[in-house]
């Protein structure tokens, strides 16, 4: 647990955020943000998934376990899903997951969910800026992190 905090002092610490983006809308929106050169903080690491409906709860918990300071899952606007209903399932799944996260003490704002369409480059950059800001305020994630202290022991 400790290795994470002393290694990065509070001031220049940069959170690392895993972003699960659905291939048809949010990933395309991220590309459009690139094409339009909308700048946003470099903290997110995008993982392309076919649909936001593909992202399950244990994927998020496992990402937190691996040390992610923040999670963003972004899919198509309701009704736009390339696979018709994937994003509806995702919405319901995260509503329930939210309760579990509160219960186990994960601060609200660590795990975020958004809709971004293929035409919303600006909005995508905005979502990334707000999520990064929120996670920065929360500071490094400590609750679930299970780092094997290999370096520590050696």
């Amino acid at each position, binding site marked *: 647990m400790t290795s994470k905090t002393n290694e990065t002092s509070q001031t220049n610490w940069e959170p690392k955020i895993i972003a699960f983006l659905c291939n048809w809308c949010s990933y395309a929106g991220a*590309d459009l943000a690139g094409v339009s050169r909308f700048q946003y903080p470099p903290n997110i690491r*995008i993982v392309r998934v076919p649909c936001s409906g593909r992202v399950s709860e244990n994927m998020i918990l496992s990402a937190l376990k691996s040390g992610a300071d923040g999670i963003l899952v972004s899919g198509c606007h309701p009704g736009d899903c390339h696979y018709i209903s994937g994003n509806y399932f995702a919405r319901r799944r995260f509503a329930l997951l939210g309760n579990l996260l509160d219960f186990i003490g994960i601060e609200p704002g660590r795990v975020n969910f958004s809709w971004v369409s293929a035409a919303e480059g600006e909005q995508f950059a905005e979502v990334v800026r707000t999520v990064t800001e929120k996670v920065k305020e929360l500071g490094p994630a400590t609750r679930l992190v299970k780092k094997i202290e290999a370096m520590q022991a050696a």
Partner: protein
Amino acid sequence: MPKGSVLVVGGGISGVQAALDLANSGFLVHLVERTTAIGGKMSQLDKTFPTNDCSACILSPKLVECGRHLNINLLTLSDLVSLEGEPGNFKAVVRQRPRYVDPTKCIACGLCAEKCPKKVTNDFNMGIGKRKAAYLSYPQAVPLKYALDPAHCIWINKPGRCGVCAKECPAGAINFDDTARDHVLEVGSVVLAPGFSRFNPTPLDFTGYGRLPNVVTTMEFERFLSPSGPCMGHLERPSDGKEPKKIAWLQCVGSRDINRAGHPYCSSICCMFALKQAVIAKEHSHGDFEPSIFYMDMRTHGKGFENYYTRAREEGVHFHRARVHSIIPSPDNQGNLKIRYVNEQGKVNFEEFDMVVLSTGLEPYRHTIELASMLGLELDADNFVRTDSFNPVATSRPGIYVCGAASEPKDIPQSVVEASAAAAEASRILAPVRWTETSKKVYPAEQNIYAQAPRIGVFVCHCGINIASVVDVAAVSAYAGTLPDVVFSQANLFTCSQDTINQMISIIKEQDLNRVVVASCSPRTHEPLFQETLRDAGLNKFLFEMANIRDQDSWVHQREPEKATTKAKDLVRMAVARVRGEGALPYNTVAVTKAALVIGGGVSGMTSALAFAEQGYPVTLIEQSDMLGGNGRKVFRNWKGVEFLPFINDLTARVASHPHITVKYNTEIKEASGSVGKFSTTFSDGRTFEHGVTVMAVGGEPYKPEGQWRFLHGVNPNVHTLLELDKKFIDDDPTLKNIKQAVFIHCVGSRIAERPYCSRVCCTHAIDSAVKLKEMNPDMDVFMLYRDVRTYGQRERIYQEARAKGVVFIRYDLERLPQVSEKEGRLIIKCHDPIIDAHVVIQPDMLVLATAIQPRRQSSTSLAKFFKCAIDSQGFLMEAHMKLRPVDFATEGVFLAGLCHYPKSMEESIAQAKAAAARASIILAHDAVPAESVTAVVTAAKCTGCGLCTEVCAYNAVSLDDNGISVVNTSMCKGCGACVAGCRSDAVTLKNIGNEQIMATVDAAFE
């Protein structure tokens, strides 16, 4: 029997698109290109509007595909010298000039150019900088083969002298005795896409072009901007290499000019070209950069163009509605240029610039004129190839079609649409001989890598300066080499260029790689190209991952290079972790139902339906009303004076009577399912129709004037919209003649916050109506209140004709809208003339509003749901790529045409409708199309039979078999993964995107 092949003349984007469409729908294509490489003018562009895509990045995949296409016979350095015969059976003689380099041997190592002593002006870079007599026209040229320039090569001119290249060439490819060859080709149809040339401003002495070094044309400036240009993308001005801080663009140089330049037409692209250059130049220079544009009308009439213009204003581009008489050298500081201009209020201003860019217009290419006279094709008054009002790709000679800027100045999206339309027309009479002259692609045997330990190859891309200017590519490539299981890592200038593609194939074989990672741009655009490369190297194409270090890294973290480089390393590490766990997947296919559904019975819908029917495919055309013709019936005539009604009646008759077309009136869609190749749609009458492709042509509707844009419409009887006036023209209303004064107001509802787009055709329509009124009664006073007159292309002639007939144009803007009031029924219109700064009062007998065209919002949104296509913020249907896939949707098998895509003229809708049919018939031409390979699979032992997966699957591709274990039907499964996320017992996984791969990828983010 006709010949199953087509001759395409011209290797620009239009020719390449036509060649690909034809070759992919079963015809052998002979592509004749005059220069040493295909790509045409687009390959000289740095960025393209309105998406600011790097031109090479969106063009090279098409060129590479064309270069390696089995059924495209690419003949470079060639010209069509004679053509005989009639449609279906032409005999063409093509003369191929000598390349002096044997293409089969040349490996494009570049040694011949390096050692060649003879320097020649580089005409690819518009004469700026030098190249050698042994040369490659540009770095990503296709075919990537060197050539000797006969005009300048020392040996060719004086045999025995020099010959350095022959000595240096490792492959012995140089052949000084190479001679011209004639190819006799028997083809069924001919498509001409010979392109255009740019106006040479030297005769306009007042521009100083040719004497003042810092006065350049837009094409020359584009080469300055391009990373593969003479100064590698850093802006240096010609006179002293200084970085220019203030640049002026002068519009309409050589266009809309009947005095010195002799071109009355508008070249249609120069406004957007200048806007793009101003925005991109501002991006290139760090710090204070002041672009200014001097113009008459800012013509941003295409899709997404008006937004681009608004954003340019916000980003600090200065706009002066003033043309400039002369450019003179600045007396005090060397190299600078001084411009005197008068703003609209008549105030004289002086301003100094570091550089001036002349927006030179388009001209007919002299080779096109020679070609047309050789083929006996008619040219129009501006020397462009004459086409028919209702068939924009047909020339005056049957069997020969034309597309691109050779028939009228037009932008790339329109040229690509016309290319596909020409493909439709060219293959119409050749339908029976499809696939008779083509050969099938045979992939090398696929290596079974199941038992092998992962051996991963990583290719990191510079993408010119797009990635390399921010991310330390060498460091990322070196880092990738250190990752576990990575056995090879290399950095490339342009990974998508053909030479790197070929290199990858040999590297995969030599290094015995069984997985590949490419770190470059977005998989959405380049994954298919690289997957095809894996297959050519005998590797299953799904053993591949991309790290998006451009659109999602270098482009969005431009001011934080170190963090962007660390992020790039993370993304590569994640991609390697992901590809490590991936296995080979089967190439599933779906049988194609050879039938088409066309939605919307307007001109676009009918034209598409006919195009399908004439190719022999059964079509069902559904129309929500009880009559075919749609908006076409409400419009009177086009700007050339040709009335629409006779054409529409004839078209309706042909559609209604065609054996292959079933027309269903008063029909809507109740329910639709399936995907490319196998759609099944249920109509409101309950009947279901199986079809392989769908074309949406649901049209648009006129904006009903309201709020401040109402102008008493519906209150005063003399206020009409353009369509209401057209109704009077169609009914030949006698009262029109005795109108003494008429006023038109442009942009009613367009180019405002609610509808921030230009409806493109209302200027032409309004001005043509004014001309019609003047024809009826020359003494009538007609006033047009406009914001920008956007009679683009050859439509400018109608604008000039209107002015010549005495129509008065008065400009207004959003700050000073015209005020319309009435007194005892008499209309009173007050507006302000900016030139003489005076208020003008007009009391016309008629006021006509040029209202906006808007999408049929509810029908587009409901259809988009059924067929999963995207809709843009305005409610127009969103095509896959604005520039290079203007008629496809991102969803395979669904296409669009007409007003539902964006407002457009009748002939542009017709072109798009034929293009949609051509693109769709590529699918119908095949018996089976590739289906999703990334599908779900169940581990029976783990399955508890709870059935949750069957409930969440939107395609009911999962069901429980008789002993309660779930099973996936791979032909229905679309690979969305909803079942995998829902399954509680981890029994079902998605091939290659299982939980292990995703968790490995996430973990890799933190090492």
